[in-house]
């Protein structure tokens, strides 16, 4: 065994071999394989549920498998075209030289970026919570609260210059989310009520609250639909291109906030305290850190980030509040935060992935009739593989890692 090893080391390693060895040892391999496996399993479900598959299955299974694979392949092609745009269309657009046609050709790509922005905020929210040892499943409700607060500021105050109105509305959103995170944080720290249950309850309360607000106090005058008034122009996040591209300032705000979160978590004493409370509460207590404040602060900050996701959507894209403005960003963000290893850089990358996936899936739903919920199924698979790397290792016959992997642990109902 050791002989072959030394022999292998003496032999001149090929570049590809080195590359694969590096890849195997790196922490990137598991996420990449998790994504690939998730996409494959999602494709399998699309294949099995396609009409060409199950109607032909009883007569000729082989042809059915072929049909299923074809259906899966076609839907993924649609998904990619929907996410990145169609290259031939882009080329044709440049030849035509018409600005509107060029913008239309590139719109899918920019729309994917637009879709990934709320994921960035929401993913950072979940990641920050995990770092501090709290599991915030209430991001969806916090997004709604952020949306409510920012829209209210957006349409109530008139005549403010954008330089004041935009930050005001945006921070109001953060405040709304922070409030919705503060309550379960307080309950967890003071009574031990588990944040997983409480944040989910807060989600439903936020939905009902939104229903009521849109039916009574925040309803757009003269409208029969439950939607809020449109926000003032001065509160809208500026867009960089003309119609139909909706790419807006929120993208860069999200990047800036990610840098800020990184700096906070890894370069400040407060961040260090939070991470210590999360990694080892007993050690944190022994070192004199205040766990109660730490938990409350972590939940509030996490909620604030989630609230920014809501503010970003409403100030940047929707411009008015409706019951369906978030297609479940909050729940998707759990998977993507873990996929990004709860690190801001990882979160940004996996947000881009999820944004492109979701935007592509919208197109897939429209043209291939595949419900967009397939995205959630894929996310569940990816999450399972990320959370249990041993499964991926078993499937792909990988070696055990040299270093112990950082394990994710959520504290149970018991309080401490």
């Amino acid at each position: 065994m050791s002989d072959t090893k030394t022999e292998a080391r003496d032999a001149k390693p090929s570049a590809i071999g080195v590359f694969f060895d590096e890849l195997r040892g790196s922490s990137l391999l598991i996420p990449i394989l998790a994504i690939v496996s998730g996409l494959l399993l999602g494709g399998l479900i699309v294949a099995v549920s396609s009409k060409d598959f199950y109607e032909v299955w009883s007569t000729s299974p082989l042809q059915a498998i072929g049909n299923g694979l074809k259906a899966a392949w076609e839907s993924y092609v649609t998904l990619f075209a929907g996410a990145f745009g169609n290259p031939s269309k882009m080329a044709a657009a440049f030849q035509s030289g018409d600005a509107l046609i060029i913008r239309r050709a590139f719109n899918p790509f920019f729309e994917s970026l637009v879709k990934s922005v709320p994921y960035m905020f929401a993913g950072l929210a979940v990641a920050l919570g995990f770092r501090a040892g709290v599991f915030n499943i209430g991001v969806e409700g916090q997004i709604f609260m952020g949306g409510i607060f920012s829209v209210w500021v957006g349409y109530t105050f008139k005549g403010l210059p954008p330089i004041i109105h935009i930050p005001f509305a945006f921070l109001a959103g953060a405040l709304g989310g922070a409030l919705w995170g503060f309550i379960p944080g307080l309950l967890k720290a003071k009574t031990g009520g588990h944040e997983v249950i409480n944040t989910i309850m807060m989600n439903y309360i936020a939905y009902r609250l939104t229903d009521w607000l849109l039916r009574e106090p925040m309803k757009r005058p003269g409208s029969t639909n439950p939607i809020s008034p449109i926000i003032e122009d001065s509160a809208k996040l500026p867009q960089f291109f003309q119609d139909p591209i909706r790419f807006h300032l929120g993208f860069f705000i999200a990047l800036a906030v990610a840098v800020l979160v990184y700096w906070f978590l890894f370069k400040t004493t407060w961040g260090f305290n939070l991470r210590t409370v999360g990694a080892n509460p007993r050690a944190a207590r022994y070192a004199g850190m205040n766990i109660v404040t730490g938990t409350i602060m972590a939940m509030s900050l996490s909620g604030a980030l989630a609230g920014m996701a809501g503010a970003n959507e409403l100030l940047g894209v929707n411009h008015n509040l409706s019951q369906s403005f978030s297609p479940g960003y909050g729940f998707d963000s759990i998977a993507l935060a873990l996929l990004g290893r709860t690190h801001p850089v990882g979160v940004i990358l996996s947000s881009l992935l999820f944004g492109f996936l979701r935007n592509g899936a919208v197109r897939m739903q429209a043209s291939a009739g595949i419900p967009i919920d397939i995205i959630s199924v894929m996310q569940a698979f990816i999450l399972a593989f990320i959370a249990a790397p041993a499964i991926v290792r078993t499937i792909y016959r990988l070696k055990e890692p040299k270093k112990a992997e950082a394990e994710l642990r959520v504290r149970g109902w018991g309080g401490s």
Partner: protein
Amino acid sequence: MTTTTSTLEMGPVYVPQTRRRVLGIVFLGVAALIWLFFLRGVDPALETTMRLYPGGSKVVIDDWVFNTQNMLWLLAAGCAAVGGFQLVRGFGRRTSLAFALVGGMFVFAFLAWAASGGQLNLGGMLRIMLVRSVPLTLGALSGMLCERAGVFNIAIEGMMLTAAMVGTIVGSVSNLWIGLLGAVLAGGLLGLIHAVISIKYKTDQIISGTVINIFAVGITSFVSGKFMQPMPQFNDPGIFVPYEIPLLGQIPFLGPILFRNNLFVYSMIFFVVFLTFMFFRTRWGLRLRSVGEHPKAADTLGVNVIRTRYMAVILGGMMAGFAGAYFTLGSVGKFDQVMTAGRGFIALAAMIFGNYMPFGAMIAGLLFGFSDSLAASLALLRVKIPSEFLLMTPYLVTMLVLAGVVGRAQLPAAGGKPYEKE
């Protein structure tokens, strides 16, 4: 602590001083709330009528009519008295009972106020309460099976949702009973997945449960959007009809509430009794609990920890599957996307509130079922509260109950920890 000690016989419950005082102040606050919001605005001449007619019975009981203001004074005084005693002496291990008592009085005060000058069908409400408590109690039993063996199960929601869908599809193409079986098996399968991820691969149990919840929402919405909405013949399983137990069903008032129900209500009562017996009076239950309390000791004594946990989680999944079947086969007879609406998590709260006891879980389930039935009953009255706020009550009650109770629930000592054999 030895693993043979029954949880029933554990020493006196220690209630910290501050918690005792805080609860006492909360109780007094409730009394103040009754006075502030309900009592002050009530016309002294108004009367509240409580109808005691659950429907269907031949025997009719007279309505219960009382003066609203007097009743509210009585209830406020009752809350204040309990609060005062709690503040000064404390109820010790009966704190939960005091908590429930004050909660009950507050709710009754609310009802008396909401129905002042009108009438409220108390019998009908109790009936709805019992029916709505079914998925919560069964879900809590599912959580109990898992957590008594040391595995947290926050996937009850996802298991119920998936089972509700599978039961509907299978029931639509065959019959109700096979549909029910399909639902139970679907729950068991998800339980198996939860067990594999969290026991074999030692993933954090809460994350493993979240995986199942996300998967359940995705797959049920996918299948429902792809097959059940375009093809309604897959979404028409029918429902289990109520069956009246002879003689007992004719008891005035109680008969129609308790003994004229469908399979799920009777099963709930059966499972509560059955599991109480199984947990605390059989070798099977002792082993299951020992695995949750002190797996190493259990292992030393020859109990197969891993196998016991697998069995418990799969059984828990099947129980959640049965609970899920209630939503479609036992209630509305068709599947809607995300129709469980957080009931799986409320069931968890019911389990904790019930202190990991089947009967406790049922009482908690009834409490939550009641808060669930509030919105349905009060929608008919001219209440000044928007219906959205009434729909919030189950969620609010869950949070309140968790806050008041969680520190004192005796959860299994090894809960949440994967077992490593040395």
